[in-house]
């Protein structure tokens, strides 16, 4: 069953098109992440779904009901904001119950719901405190609770973890995932952090310039990016790009001649100018590189040990190359090393359209 349906959604501010004919179909219980650099329109889209912004054209349906003209409170949504947006003059209990009181719910029902939400989020001891007396993580929990008590169909998150420090962010990320696992509500989550997107999402929508570039599962987006922008946006450290030409069974640059091997082209193989992208973790080194379709000896220039893995910088045929190696790899700058990869694990993009080949 479809939970949220966005149909030909367009939003213009004067002459500026912020969202351009978007179409998204979100099944019930899905965790959808809207991912993109700042200014791509992801938060704007979320605000449209929430009803905080009027759309220029198109429709929004929630649970098979056309809510395009409905007030935010009538849409069956709850929203969590980046700045928490807790009402500073109310206690935690007051914050949680504000929406219910607006809906004129009976007092004992409100008390029961607040108690249940506080239990789920483990904020019971904080109910009498004011937001100013809470830590960042506690505040964000209360903000989630505010959506929880209203028993909504769809949760909307607008960069909820961006104001937290790194460790707390990782903790709360898991908590949100657990919450989704238990509640099984539809959730739409806006972020610019690809780690959050990859770890939380059932599906990711990557946006740029008010247009959805690719809407797919995290694995699919990671392994088979639909265009050069998506390939470069997803993955850290960034994918390595080579500019050259596809000629027969080889990809040729000034100094390199890479065999195409088993690469699965989407639409026939044609000689043409193209980009080749290969992720740093798909480049192997030493003995493991010996039997790969392409291998060459390079000199390591800079090594960045990170504990869990090691990042090495080198040059391949005049192109800078990032390699991700084992955390304990004993390489020093200046070492000569055999590196290689299987082009079938990389991606080819047309030089002009930048679309996947």
């Amino acid at each position, binding site marked *: 069953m479809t939970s949220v349906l966005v149909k030909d959604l367009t939003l213009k501010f004067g002459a500026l098109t912020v969202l351009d004919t978007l179409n998204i179909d979100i099944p019930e219980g899905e965790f959808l992440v809207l991912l993109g650099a700042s200014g791509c329109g992801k938060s704007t889209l979320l605000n449209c779904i929430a009803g*905080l912004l009027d759309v220029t054209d198109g429709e929004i349906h929630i649970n098979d009901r056309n809510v395009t003209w409905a007030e*935010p*409170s009538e849409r069956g949504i709850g*929203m969590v904001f980046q700045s928490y*947006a*807790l009402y*500073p003059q109310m206690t935690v209990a007051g914050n949680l119950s*504000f*929406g219910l009181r607006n809906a004129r719910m009976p007092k004992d029902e409100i008390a029961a719901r607040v108690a249940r939400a506080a239990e789920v989020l483990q904020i019971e001891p904080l109910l009498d405190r004011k937001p100013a007396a809470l830590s960042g993580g506690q505040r964000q929990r209360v903000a989630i609770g505010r959506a929880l008590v209203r028993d909504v169909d769809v949760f909307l998150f*607008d960069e909820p973890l961006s104001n937290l420090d790194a460790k707390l962010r990782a903790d709360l990320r898991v908590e949100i995932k657990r919450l989704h696992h238990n509640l099984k509500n539809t959730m739409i989550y806006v972020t610019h952090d690809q780690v959050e997107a990859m770890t939380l999402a059932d599906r990711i929508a990557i946006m740029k310039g008010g247009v959805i570039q690719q809407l797919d599962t995290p694995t699919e987006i990671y392994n088979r990016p639909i265009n050069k922008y998506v390939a470069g946006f997803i993955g850290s450290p960034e994918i390595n790009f080579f500019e050259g030409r596809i000629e027969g069974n080889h990809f040729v640059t000034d100094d390199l001649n890479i065999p195409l091997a088993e690469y699965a082209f989407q639409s026939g193989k044609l000689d043409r100018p193209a980009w080749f992208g290969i992720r740093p973790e798909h480049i192997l080194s030493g003995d493991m590189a010996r039997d790969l379709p392409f291998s060459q000896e390079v000199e390591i220039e800079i090594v960045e040990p990170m504990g869990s893995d090691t990042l090495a910088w080198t040059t391949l045929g005049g192109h800078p190359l990032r390699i991700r190696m084992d955390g304990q790899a004993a390489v020093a700058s200046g070492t000569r090393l055999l590196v290689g990869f299987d082009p079938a694990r990389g991606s080819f993009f047309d030089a002009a359209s930048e679309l996947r080949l």
Partner: protein
Amino acid sequence: MVDASQPRGPKPRKRLSRGNIMLYGTLIVVAMYYALPLYVMIVTSLKGMPEIRMGNVFSPPVEITFQPWVKAWSEACTGINCDGLSRGFWNSVQILVPSVFLSIIIASINGYALANWRFKGADVFFTILILGAFIPYQVMLYPIVIILREMGLYGSLWGLVLVHTVFGMPILTLLFRNYFTAIPEELFKAARVDGAGFWGIYFRIMLPMSLPIFVVAMILQVTGIWNDFLFGVIYTRPEIYPMTVQLNNIVNSVQGVKEYNVNMAATLLTGLVPLTIYFVSGKLFVRGIAAGAVKG
């Protein structure tokens, strides 16, 4: 081993450095410059007329008398009325209270609507309102006389209340709009998602967060309206003249002896209300601003 010649611990500070002497010297001179006239007024208002005629304005009273204060409050004559400033005081109160409340209530709703509910033509509305703040009052005096006459309010207290409310609008609206604009937009969005409407958000989210700006607006309006002379003298009749107009009539009366002590007492009495407001709410005002500055 501690080497005494090496810097260690708190840095020693010189209390009587050249900079400090300059600083405190200047401050003392400036403070005296402002305090001296007040001192002369208080001293003079407590002297009898024979003592004043001796001519030394700075000398403290030999014989303290409160008679000038009593006379200024309840006996001094203006025109045909001889009940002192008390009549003007109550007139002023009757003008002040509704004017302050009306103007602050309306301006805060204006500012809230302009800051949070971007209605069509909001920018034009705001521009016109702000332009109003730059037009000299004198230009509008006569047109307002005509408007009040047509409304049947000319010469009444409510006419003056209306004038004060309207003239307070531009600057107060600007004040409130800027304050509400600084409140994070996400708070407003969260309240909308929680189902609060225009008035719900205003009364339950915005108002409780805005005490400091209400105090600022109140100080502005109370002092402005209480000290107003021009509108009071033009739009009211002698029986309902505000205190400032009556003060002027007492001080400038040309009959008989100039009673400096009564004049001084009358002036001090008139200034008492804004002074009290400053003393009482000034502290609250500073505390409010400071509390607002510390972000949670």
